[in-house]
């Protein structure tokens, strides 16, 4: 809350000043109504609508970074708030017939606000399309913000299982799964320290994303193990992509905070879906990964 107030001080001050000006203008021009004249249902309805539009402003300001789209949305909502606010004042204060500005405020601010809000939402939609394009290989089919991993901005194993279930539902196409594991990550973690090793996972995730196709999905399975879902791919293609990813990781010179290069190696395990469910597909990929790990240690 404090953070919200600090970041958007000027916007919020402007809003409070305008609301107060409206109250003062009403008081100066008109007379308060009697207690019996008040219509409580209208007061609750109009007051509630004003409060809700304030709440929307707060949520928008709190959830979005600053910028053109945010300004547009807030300006639109502010217009709507002013209109309801003046409406609410009418319930308490009787203005003389000769005064026209209150009608302008009520009937002008509302449509103006709505137009600005609509433009804002349209641009928000465009912005969201751009973000979705960026998230494509992290999300694939559906969005679920609760399954995001806390360490890397990738989805976790739960999301992987859900996605595989969806993919395996399409009987007509084959699905390949690659499990990718860092070699001796336990050792790297102790050498690099927790902050750098966490960053290593994050950066490796970014790097892997850059090297996948549009239709692929990357998740962090757990710890230092990543999972890549390749829809519509067979053994050959999966092997090609797996070896590309291995080479890529091999050439990745991660920079520690001291600026030194830290090199890594990864192992992969591939499984192709043959009418099995997501659990057995994951299990087979993990098994193949364990095999390649032990053959690597023996060598």
């Amino acid at each position, binding site marked *: 809350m404090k953070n919200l107030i600090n970041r958007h001080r000027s916007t919020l001050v402007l809003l409070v000043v305008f609301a107060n000006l409206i109250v003062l203008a009403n008081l100066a021009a008109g007379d308060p109504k009697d207690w019996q004249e008040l219509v409580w249902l209208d007061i609750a309805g109009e007051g509630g609508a004003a409060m809700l539009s304030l709440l929307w402003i707060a949520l928008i300001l709190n959830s979005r970074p600053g910028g053109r789209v945010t300004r547009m949305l807030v300006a639109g909502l502010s217009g709507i708030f002013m209109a309801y606010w003046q409406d609410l004042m009418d319930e308490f204060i009787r203005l003389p017939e000769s005064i026209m500005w209150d009608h302008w405020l009520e009937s002008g601010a509302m449509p103006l606000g709505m137009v600005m809000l609509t433009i804002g939402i349209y641009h928000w939609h465009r912005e969201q399309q751009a973000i979705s394009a960026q998230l494509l290989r992290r999300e694939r089919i559906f969005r679920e913000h609760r399954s995001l991993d806390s360490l890397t901005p990738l989805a976790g194993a739960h999301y992987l299982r859900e996605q595989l279930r969806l993919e395996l539902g399409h009987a007509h196409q084959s699905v390949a799964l690659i499990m990718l594991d860092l070699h001796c990550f*336990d050792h790297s*973690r*102790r050498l690099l320290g927790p902050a750098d090793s966490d960053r290593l996972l994050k950066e490796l995730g970014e790097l892997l994303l850059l090297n996948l196709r549009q239709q692929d999905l990357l998740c962090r399975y757990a710890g230092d193990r990543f999972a890549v879902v390749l829809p519509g791919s067979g053994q050959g293609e999966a092997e090609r992509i797996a070896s590309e990813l291995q080479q890529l990781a091999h050439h990745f010179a991660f920079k520690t905070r001291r600026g030194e290069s830290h090199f890594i190696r990864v192992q992969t395990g591939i499984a192709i879906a043959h009418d099995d469910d997501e659990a057995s597909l994951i299990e087979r990929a993990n098994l193949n990964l364990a095999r390649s790990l032990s053959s690597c240690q023996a060598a």
Partner: protein
Amino acid sequence: MKGYLPDSAFIPAHHMPAALIDLVQDQGIDTHRLFRHTGLFPDTLMRGEARLSPQDYLQLIHNARQLCPDPELPFRYGQRLFPGHYGAISALLGQAGNLQECLLGFEDYTALISPLIGMRITRSQDYLCVQWLDTCGAGSHWPFLVESAMAGLTSVTQWLSGRSLPWQFQFSYRCPPWPEQYQVHLGGPLHFESCMDAMLLPRGLVDIPWPGGAATGWNVARQQCHQQLQQLGFSHSLRQRLYRHLQKRVTAPPSLQEVAETLGTSPATLKRRLRQHDCHYQQLLDEVRLHQAILWLQFDGMTPEQVCRKLNFSDSTNFRRAFKRWSGLTPSACHKLLQALGE
């Protein structure tokens, strides 16, 4: 020496608890909320003066789990725990010449290295069995402690031995909906719902020398640990002490009265202290007998009938009923399950 209680404040907050505090802070979570009800303050923590009781430590774990409900948390916390920089005990672990010398640190100096979860070591013909035991009544946080201890021991033994050791893992509880965390962080064969929380290793790997072993340093560190325990006045929790006492006399268990006399206290005080640990005498005795029965079934090739006789049950129906009450399984079902693990 007496045992520590859940409210004995002796755990330096900048040692093991700090690993959890740092981990949670790395996630960008506010420490004020993490320290709630733990009696911990940032300034006393930073001065190295803060001491937590096992209860406070459990509260800290509770808060961390609330603020960061990620199933990966116990594993990442465990991986940061050992050997640590906790003075003599860390020096002892770091200079251990083999697994045996490393485990000795955990077994004998629980208060210094792992105050919430103790270790019972059993050596059979083929296997070394490292079993994890509740020292202070962890309640719903028991799986968290087991996971962190297992991840910690797996990681530190891999680091110090210079190779990954083929541990097997046995859990008393059911596999939660995130098997991946266990697969990746622990590796090795995993057996859930297998009566006890333990790690097994082929016996032959216990004495293989480790590269960082240093006999003199290890011996000095051991003496320093011993001195630290003398100053504290205890090496294990009261619950664990009692467990060990009963373990030695499992075939002819003493009464509460007798135990109290051996510990130099009155039965009423002993009962009250055990209640603080969230357990009572009979419950602890049952636990000791169940664990012993499992170890005999699993490692000594005994049949349920032999175990029944060895534990001095009058007849097999009584034993069956008691065993079912302790473990939820009949002795023969448990025997079958444990036999299947060995294959």
